[in-house]
């Protein structure tokens, strides 16, 4: 599946395209099929997202979506060396999802 990611213009936070908005949770990301370029052009123009791009991902059971590359999984969760700063600080297994 193809999903879209970028950084929120104001906060810089990593965000994922949900089909109608941007979410900080990768599990909200939807498959955009062949619509990536059109959506990215529209959203960058609307100043909602910055440095956006399309990536490969795969469905991931209860967790929803897992980006194909480790860089995007680290973006999705947060730095592996600071679990307290990730989106899932209480989940001891979150790091395993990244690696």
């Amino acid at each position, binding site marked *: 599946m193809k999903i879209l990611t970028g950084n929120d213009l104001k*906060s810089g936070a990593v965000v994922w395209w949900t089909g109608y908005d941007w979410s900080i949770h990768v599990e909200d990301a939807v498959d955009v099929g062949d619509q990536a370029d059109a959506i990215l052009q529209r959203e960058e123009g609307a100043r909602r997202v910055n*440095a956006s791009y399309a990536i490969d991902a795969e469905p991931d059971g209860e967790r929803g979506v897992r980006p194909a590359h*480790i860089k995007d999984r*680290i973006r999705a969760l947060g*730095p592996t060396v600071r679990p307290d700063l990730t989106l899932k600080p209480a989940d001891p297994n979150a790091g395993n999802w990244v690696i």
Partner: protein
Amino acid sequence: MYRYDQYDQAMVDTRVAEFRDQTRRRLEGKLTEDQFKPLRLQNGLYLQLHAYMLRVAVPYGTLNSAQMHVLANIADKYDRGYGHFTTRQNIQYNWIKLEDAPDILADLAAVEMHAIQTSGNCIRNISSDQFAGAAGDELIDPRPYAELLRQWSSFHPEFLTLPRKFKICVIASETDRAAMKLHDIGIRIVKNAAGEIGAAFYVGGGMGRTPMIAPLIRDFVPLDQLITYSEACLRVYNRYGRRDNKYKARIKILVHELGKEEYTRQVEEEFAHLLTQGIEPPIAELERIKAHFTDPAFDQGASDDLDLSDPAFALWVARNTVAHKQPGYVIANISLKPVGGIPGDASAAQIHLMADLAKEYSFDELRVTHAQNIVLPHVKKADLHTLWQKLDAAGLGAANLDTVEDIIACPGLDYCSLANARSIPVAQKISQRFAANGKTGELGELKLKISGCINACGHHHAGHIGILGVDKKGLENYQLLLGGCEGDDTSLGKITGPGFTEDGIVDAVEKATEVYLAERAEGERFLDTYRRIGMEKFKEAIYA
């Protein structure tokens, strides 16, 4: 240390106002990202893996307590409670909001700091010896010349769009503690046979994907021609440096391709021309700057006695303090490398504490080192035990300077959008491994440096042991290098062979140290043994 005059302050304040307006226009949609990106980068604001990252300049690594407190306040107020001291003697924050950036720059300007020229193809923050003004082996204090170069290079209209970024280092000691020959220009202040003081110029060094050691192009430039000669070096580079390929755009490539002799010939020709133009700053300006770098009011009767009956304190003194030029004082190094910690990271509380301790025990002065540690340059021996106790209580008492635990590591894939592999977890595992096996002390001086990509922010080429993270078919992989050195006998590390997994590289490092312990001759460091016996025995052990 240097204090801004009205021109410095006006320049920085004006820049803050400009950037506030530029940011407003970006948020209102009046600037596109393509238009805004170079503007934010000129103010140190990158877009990194998780958020915007702000890199703040610490000119030649020197700062005072008030400035350090502001760095801590920024960590608390605008970031997530910590800052990361970098391998360029700067500090960076990883979780900055664009809308906060102008306010942060205003806070910095209020204490004579900024983020100018911490990014982009310009002359970057000037680096220097972290022991400047305190070291016993120093000819003169290099910082007035670093400051002169800072003022010359700040907003220099000719050098704001160089082919690529440009890094200058100035030292004035017998021992190179600043990796001088691995800079675009390395300047060593020297004395010639006539007893005159001048500057030796090494040009065309650097790390990155094509590491090179800078050759000496002139062994003596009179100090009253320092800026003119620097300008000549830059002019030739700006004129002929490659702009068609960013990977071949650094001055090291130009010097290499032209050859040292031809590059030098062109510089000398340009230098002769520039001497007729009278571009050197007036002596009065240099004297004004020098007046800011006089020695603090040392206690001339300070005792050299030190009670080393506490073994933990004695170990810290042995490893983390360096002789001072003034009797009764030492240079104290605060390691930001606790076992299992993140190299270079310090919490806001720790930064505040270091600021307070500098105020109380080090004449209000601190230094940031390229090894990602902090220095209190002027500590009275009589205060040292109290200082150490306060550091230790705050998790800043690690006694491991220049040991295998004192690892330089770039932010790597945990934070950096350029990285191919994580650096920090490898550093953490190595420091934990050696803390557990108890060999840190036995190994002595062993400089280990880790980069998460070929850009080499972690200086892996210059590590006695270097580690380079690469992407191997989507998986992190780590190459091992041996034999690098950043000091007087600068050398570049050589790759041992095939790379390793994250755990495998930790085992490989330990095996390399076992070879050293088995093979070393009396008094040899790891590097010395490697240079004597070569790579083969290390490879046999590592790949067995």
